């Protein structure tokens, strides 16, 4: 408390200093303000921290970026919301948290502000899917998208060519190719995905599940974790782990999965587009010359849809109006075409604008941008349901799917148990 009030006093002193020089105050409407931003530790975090001084130069507001891992971000921000402690002004929100945010009113509903500032935001240039899925829930806009990710398939041209395999266009082809490409004696594996208990395995399985026609929510919003399609897709997922994945993959989370691909252990992997810049970076990747990115293969005869994920920026509903205003200014700045371009030139791997994905400089640097553009146009951001119960459903799946992968449990039995528990959440 003492620290905070000292900080406030300091801020007040700074603010009055700024006010004293009137010319300065007119140029910089938020001089002296500090915005605390809680950011997921994705590629964009360091870039935001790097670019934030530009915002300060423009508006006078200092942005402090607190970079947190997924679990800490969730716990710290939830605690901040529940306790109304106002520690954070801006919060990066995972696409799947929208339901919980909307239900509990954690963040400012941005609907009216977006309408008011539509021209300034150049809304036409932003993919509608990113606005819809990343932050819209039950008529509220609880966050504004700034980092859209497309589910894409990364593969090794050299390995596929050597084996005489065409780039898989259907999920069935993908499975066959993955098994065929695997040769443990040469330490080459056809496939890799997250196997680690928890969010890691749940999210990756949901991605493959959606492409194989599964869904964990019925049309009327009831959980269907143990549907026939889901059980079938889980069997396929297990088969891939048993026959085509590096042995350690059952314990991989995103970091381990990406690393195994960059180290040249793996021929094909479905992943978020945000990791793609890393494959082309010779400092961390051994596959710079042989990697390629394409669309995620969908099951035969199923509608063509590509997974959409990513992060929106929300404004803490508890903070005072001036802070909210400055926070909104920051969001507008961060999502403006110029900043989005610079942001991605720095390797953020986070896209929401058509103009950014079409930018010649960026396309020269990252040849896979057209894949993201087409994926955004046919995006499905609901394969991981963005409902308030999602975190707990994800946890149930995280245990069930992992239990199947490490042996022992039968896919149907595992999903039956998860379904029984999930039903209690509704």
């Amino acid at each position, binding site marked *: 408390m003492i620290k905070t009030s000292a900080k406030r006093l300091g801020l007040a002193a700074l603010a009055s200093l700024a006010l004293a020089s009137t010319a300065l105050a007119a140029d910089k409407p938020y001089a002296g303000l500090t915005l605390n931003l809680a950011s997921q530790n994705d590629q964009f975090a360091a870039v935001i921290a790097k670019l934030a001084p530009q915002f300060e130069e423009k508006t006078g507001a200092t942005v402090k970026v607190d970079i947190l891992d997924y679990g800490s971000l969730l716990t710290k921000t939830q605690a901040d919301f529940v306790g109304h402690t106002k520690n954070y002004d801006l919060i990066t929100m995972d696409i799947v948290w929208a339901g919980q945010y909307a239900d509990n009113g954690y963040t400012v509903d941005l609907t009216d502000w977006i309408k008011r500032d539509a021209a300034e935001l150049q809304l036409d240039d932003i993919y509608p899917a990113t606005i819809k899925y990343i932050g819209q829930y039950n008529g509220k806009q609880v966050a504004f998208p700034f980092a859209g990710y497309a589910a894409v398939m990364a593969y090794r041209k050299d390995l596929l060519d050597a084996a005489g395999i065409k780039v898989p266009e259907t999920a069935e082809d993908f499975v066959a190719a993955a098994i065929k490409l695997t040769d443990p004696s040469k330490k080459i594996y056809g496939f890799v995905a997250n*196997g*680690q208990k928890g969010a890691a395995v749940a999210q990756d399985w949901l991605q493959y599940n959606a492409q194989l026609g599964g869904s964990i929510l019925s049309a009327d919003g009831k959980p269907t974790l143990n549907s026939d399609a889901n059980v079938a897709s889980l069997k396929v997922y297990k088969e891939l782990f048993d026959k085509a994945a590096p042995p350690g993959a059952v314990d991989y989370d995103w970091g381990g999965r990406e690393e195994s691909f960059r180290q040249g252990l793996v021929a094909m992997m479905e992943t978020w587009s945000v990791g793609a810049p890393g494959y082309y970076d010779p400092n961390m990747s051994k596959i710079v010359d042989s990697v390629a990115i394409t669309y995620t293969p969908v099951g035969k005869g199923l509608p063509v849809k590509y997974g959409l994920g990513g992060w929106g920026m929300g404004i803490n509903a508890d903070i005072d109006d001036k802070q909210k205003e400055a926070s909104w200014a920051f969001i507008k700045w961060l999502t403006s075409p110029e900043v989005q371009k610079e942001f991605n030139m720095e390797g953020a791997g986070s896209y929401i604008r058509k103009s950014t994905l079409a930018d010649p400089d960026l396309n020269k640097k990252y040849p896979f941008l057209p894949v993201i553009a087409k994926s955004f146009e046919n995006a499905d951001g609901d394969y991981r349901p963005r409902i308030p119960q999602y975190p707990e459903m994800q946890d149930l799946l995280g245990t069930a799917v*992992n239990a199947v992968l*490490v*042996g022992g449990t039968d896919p149907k039995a595992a999903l039956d*148990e998860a379904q029984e528990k999930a039903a209690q959440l509704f």
Partner: protein
Amino acid sequence: MTSLASGSVSIPQRRRSGLGFRDRRRFFLIALAVPAVAYIVLIALYPLVQGIWYSFFDYRLLKNGGRMTFIGLDNYVQLFTDNTGRRAIINTFVFTIGAVFFEFVLGLGLALLLWRDGRFNRICLAFLLIPVTITPLVVGLIFRALLAVDYGYIGYYLAEWGITSPRGLFAGTATALPTLIFIDIWEWTPLVALILLAGLKSLPGDILEAALADGATSWQRFKLVILPLLLPTVFLALVLRMMDAFRVFDSIFVTTGGGPADATTSLMVYGVKQGLQFFNIGYASAISNVTILCIGLMAAAFTLMIRRADVKANEQ
């Protein structure tokens, strides 16, 4: 003389205040105890009572606007009927019994080996204490790295030589918990050894000499003289380790996260997930209370056992 003089000076003052020496002394002692009592009430008693209270409610911060609904013992029933809850209870007991048993046996052996005071023994002891000084979280991270099948110095070769499954120790439902028990043993055996060694060093030398003079063999001396005299220290070591092992969290959290499946989910791992991830305060409180109750019961059982052994030793 001085104290007498000052005493006679202060007598009139005391009379003026209307309180006798005994009362003043009592107030003084109470005043001394107040901070400690306040500390216990605030830090231990209040949260404990609050936790018991919460455990009778459906209290989720993320649902129904955080409203509390009385549900009686439902949270406890859930813990014992839920597969993960039951698994967590079993895992915690297996972990505690396994870890403390081996730590005690190995610790006692080490303490006996290091009993004789010598330079070599003192150097050994210093080195032995290194694991104890590392925080369990870091120990977990170190072992996670060492045992990783892709890049770990140990895990890679264990898998390569076919000693473990190619997926590694942490990824097997049968091997993950024993591995975590091993890590705990690695870290805490030296502490048990140190406590027992301190006990050994404080044993009365004359009794040991008498036993030697009476012609007792080494085993007889150990069984009939050393062990009974060492019992209070043994009790201390066992209770300390038992309480600590029962609330194991950090090393599991950073290595397996409770997996694979629920193979290494302990009560604390489960409780932290319910409380700090899902903010299901009622259920998390019930899990904590069961943990506290188990620790309390086990400590009581230990005390009883040791006391009985103590009485028996005295009778002999």
